[in-house]
């Protein structure tokens, strides 16, 4: 029974992902779902940092850019295997995150926002300027992702890859939240002093979760690059970072389900708005503002609170 209850949400998500292909009419819809899954995985990682640990990052697209360009550059210019390139990208992103994190996380609030924002912008500028390797503003093509003679290609194959990745991320994120590590993370958000007194090395935990979210962002950058087959510097720019933070806060900070909902809604939004040529930015901005003014905790926690006022969403 306990196992079943613990995994009911996971089983539900698995069932949903299994059945979804039955109702997806064509590749256009597959493409949207794949993008939703990619964003959902990144947002899960980012929500651990922003929602659970309470540390903002306005530069996460920079890490996605590192992963994407590692997967583009290393196989093209150096002949590396795409999987090696992907691992290298994740290692570089993690290393940068780790080196910068220690000094960054002594800072709070606005200073932290500034530092992560600066980091993201620097990465984006480097990508734009090193045209010899990155193709500059025009971007560059990315080789297919192959494994033992088999190449992942086409929306349908990618769908299953991402469904598996999403399930794993969802499971892992929930596990993490409901573990000593995850509790320490939430505790330092709730009260830094109290968690220190309980023996939590606050800076170490902030660094660890920052590095972890950068690691996953980079991996998903690589996946995106291989899936689309082309990268442009837009993947690393400030607006992409903002888009991701928006998914976190609209879905709900410190909510695993919220991460999924936020990613799904905001990935669908541009499609829904595409009929209003030119108004996307305005609509996007208005939704951000309205959501934050009227539901500062985000969709899922606000709705949960309405139905179960004294309890928390099960981690």
């Amino acid at each position, binding site marked *: 029974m306990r196992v079943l209850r613990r995994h009911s949400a996971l089983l539900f998500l698995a069932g949903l992902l299994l059945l979804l292909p039955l109702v997806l009419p064509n590749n256009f819809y597959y493409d949207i779902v794949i993008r939703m899954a990619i964003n959902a995985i990144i947002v899960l990682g980012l929500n651990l940092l*922003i929602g659970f640990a309470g540390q*903002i990052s*306005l530069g996460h697209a920079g890490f996605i850019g590192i992963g994407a360009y590692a997967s583009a550059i290393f196989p093209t210019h150096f002949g590396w295997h795409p999987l090696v390139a992907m691992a290298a990208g994740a290692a570089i992103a993690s290393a940068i995150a780790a080196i*910068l994190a220690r*000094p*960054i996380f*002594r*800072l709070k*609030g*606005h*200073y932290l*926002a*500034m*530092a992560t*924002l*600066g*980091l993201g*912008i*620097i990465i984006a*500028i*480097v990508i734009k*300027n090193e045209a010899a390797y990155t193709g500059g503003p025009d971007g560059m093509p990315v080789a297919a992702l192959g494994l033992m003679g088999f190449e992942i290609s086409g929306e349908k194959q990618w769908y299953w890859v991402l469904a598996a990745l999403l399930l794993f991320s969802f499971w892992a994120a929930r596990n993490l939240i409901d573990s000593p590590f995850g509790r320490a993370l939430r505790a330092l958000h709730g009260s830094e*002093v109290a968690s220190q007194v309980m023996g939590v090395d606050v800076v170490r935990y902030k660094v660890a979760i920052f590095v972890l979210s950068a690691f996953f962002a980079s991996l998903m950058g690589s996946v995106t690059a291989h899936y689309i087959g082309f990268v442009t510097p837009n993947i690393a720019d*400030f607006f992409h970072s*903002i888009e991701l*933070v*928006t998914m976190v*806060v609209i879905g709900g*900070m410190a909510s695993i389900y919220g991460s999924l909902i936020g990613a799904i809604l905001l990935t669908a939004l541009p499609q829904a708005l595409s009929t209003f040529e*030119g*108004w*996307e*930015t*305005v*609509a*996007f*901005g*208005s*939704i*951000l*503002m309205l959501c*934050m*003014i009227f539901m*500062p905790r985000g969709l899922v926690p606000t709705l949960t609170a309405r139905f179960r006022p004294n309890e928390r969403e099960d981690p």
Partner: protein
Amino acid sequence: MLSQFLQFLFSGITVGATYALAALGFTLIYNASNVINFAQGEFIMLGGMLAFFFMQSGLPLPLAILLAIAIPAVVGMLLEKLAIEPARDAEVVTLIIITIGASLVIRGLIQIWLGKGAHSYPAFSGSEPIHLGGATLLPQSLWVLGVTALVVIALWYFFSRTLAGKAILATSCNRLAAELVGINTQWVLLVSFARSAALGAIGGVLLTPITLTSYDVGIMLGLKGFVAAVVGGLGNGLGAVLGGLLVGIIEAMAAGYISSAYKDAVPFILILFILFFMPRGIFGAQVTERV
């Protein structure tokens, strides 16, 4: 050698003055409400774009400038009234996102209304360069520097010599206490947003003849203004001005001597450096936290 250095210095100070105005804008709002207004850059853009629009519509220069400053001020007040005030007690992250949303709305509307093109208008008093020590200085740069200096002096006078200024300082210190002694803190917030928007717009109006403007220039200018404010120690007015000039000069020097392609990265490298080694900014004060 020297003339080249002077040339970089002139362009650095000119751009830096605009950053200083933006940084002052950040500081005014931060002091009154503890909010970092990420839409600050859009006011710079609004100033330039509106001035362009009104001049193109045939309004005389002074009137066009006046409107290009007054309208952003009203937008700033609307932002405070409609978006910041209702979310007063929200977390830092929430407030940051609200202002980012506002910045998207503003720049989206301008893009729809005035298009994606880059615009400019003639300098206020001709474009005959002034020769100085082998370098050239545009008359418009003098406008930028002169007006910035006037604004700084006016603000200094306001905060240190008038009751209204002291009311604002009191509000930033402790909102509740300020209310208890009868200060209308809502009014203080409104005025701070209006003033800060106007400061940004002034920068935009002055800078546009030199650098061009378009619907999307706000974000970079705003972020650099924020860098300047942090360099100067967030909340410190004089620090913001010096920070702005410093960021402008370092950026111009780096562009001239190192690499113009990385010009835009320079302020952000600078800020990371400063945050690592001087977390409270160059001119910031030391604060002990109490438990």
